[in-house]
C-alpha cells in the first residue's frame, strides 16, 4: 500500500511504549498493532486526533504517501 505508517518512528521519538500509547489513546493494543504493522484498512478521524494529541504531532508525521 502506498500509504506508510510512521507510528514506530514517532513512538521512538516520544519514547513511549505501545502499551502506554494504547492506554492513552483509548484503543486496544491489538488494534494499535494492526495500525503500526500497516495491516489496517482505515483509520477513524477520532483515533488520528487522539494519536496526534498524545504524540504531539501532525497527521503528516504519522501518515506518509510513498509512490513505489
Amino acid at each position, binding site marked *: 500500500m502506498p500509504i506508510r505508517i510512521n507510528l514506530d518512528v514517532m513512538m521512538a521519538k516520544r519514547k513511549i511504549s505501545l502499551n502506554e500509547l494504547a492506554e492513552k489513546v483509548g484503543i486496544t493494543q491489538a*488494534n*494499535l498493532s*494492526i495500525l503500526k504493522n500497516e*495491516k*489496517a*484498512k*482505515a*483509520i*477513524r478521524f477520532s*483515533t488520528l486526533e487522539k494519536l496526534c494529541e498524545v504524540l504531539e504531532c501532525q497527521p503528516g508525521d504519522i501518515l506518509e504517501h510513498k509512490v513505489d
Partner: protein
Amino acid sequence: MKKIRNLSAKTIYGFLSIALGMCFANLAASIGLLIYSLIYKMQLPSITELPVLMRINNHTFLQDINQTAIVSRIQGSLLLVSSSTGIKLFTSIYQIVLIISTGLCLWIMRKIIWTVIQGEPFVPQNGKRIKVLAMIVIFVPLILQVSAYFVTKNVITQLNFIDTTLDAELMGRSTLIVCIFSGLLLFVISEVFRIGTSLKEEQELTV
C-alpha cells in the same frame, strides 16, 4: 438464546451428516449395480422412469348420463427393463450424477453450518460455497431432465403401440422453474454474502 441457536445448528449438522452417509451408501450401491450388470450382461430395470405423453389415436369416450369425457392424451412414465447397454448406462449415470450432486450440496451445507457452530459464518469461503450450491441447483436438474427427454424420445420411437402414439415430454417443467429461481436466489445471496464479508473485514481492520 445463543445456546438454543447452537443446539439447533448442531442438530442440523447431525442430520446433514446422516444424509451424507446415506448418499455415500446409495452411490456405492449404484456404482456396484452398474458394474455388476455390465459384467454379467444382466437385464437391469431402468432406475429412472422416463416421462412420456401418450396420444390415443382413436379417442376413448367415457360417458355417463350427464357428461361425456374424451380421452385423447395421457401423461405418464415408462419404466423400462432393458438389456441395452446404452439405456443401462444412461439410467445409472443419471442416478450417479443425481446422488453426487445431492451429496455435494449436503457437504457444502454441512460446511456452512459448521462455520455457524464455530460462530464465524461471515467468511469469504461461505460466499463461494453458496455460489457453487446455486450452480448445482440450476444446472444439474436442467442437464438431467433435458437428457432424459432426448433419451425418452429416442426409446419410444422404437416401441409400437396399437391405436396410440407415444410422445416424449420434458418432465417436471414446474420443478425446473423452481430450481432455476432457487438457484438465482442463491446467486443473489452469495453476492450479498461476498459484499457482507468484505464490509466486515474492512470494519474489523478499521482502527
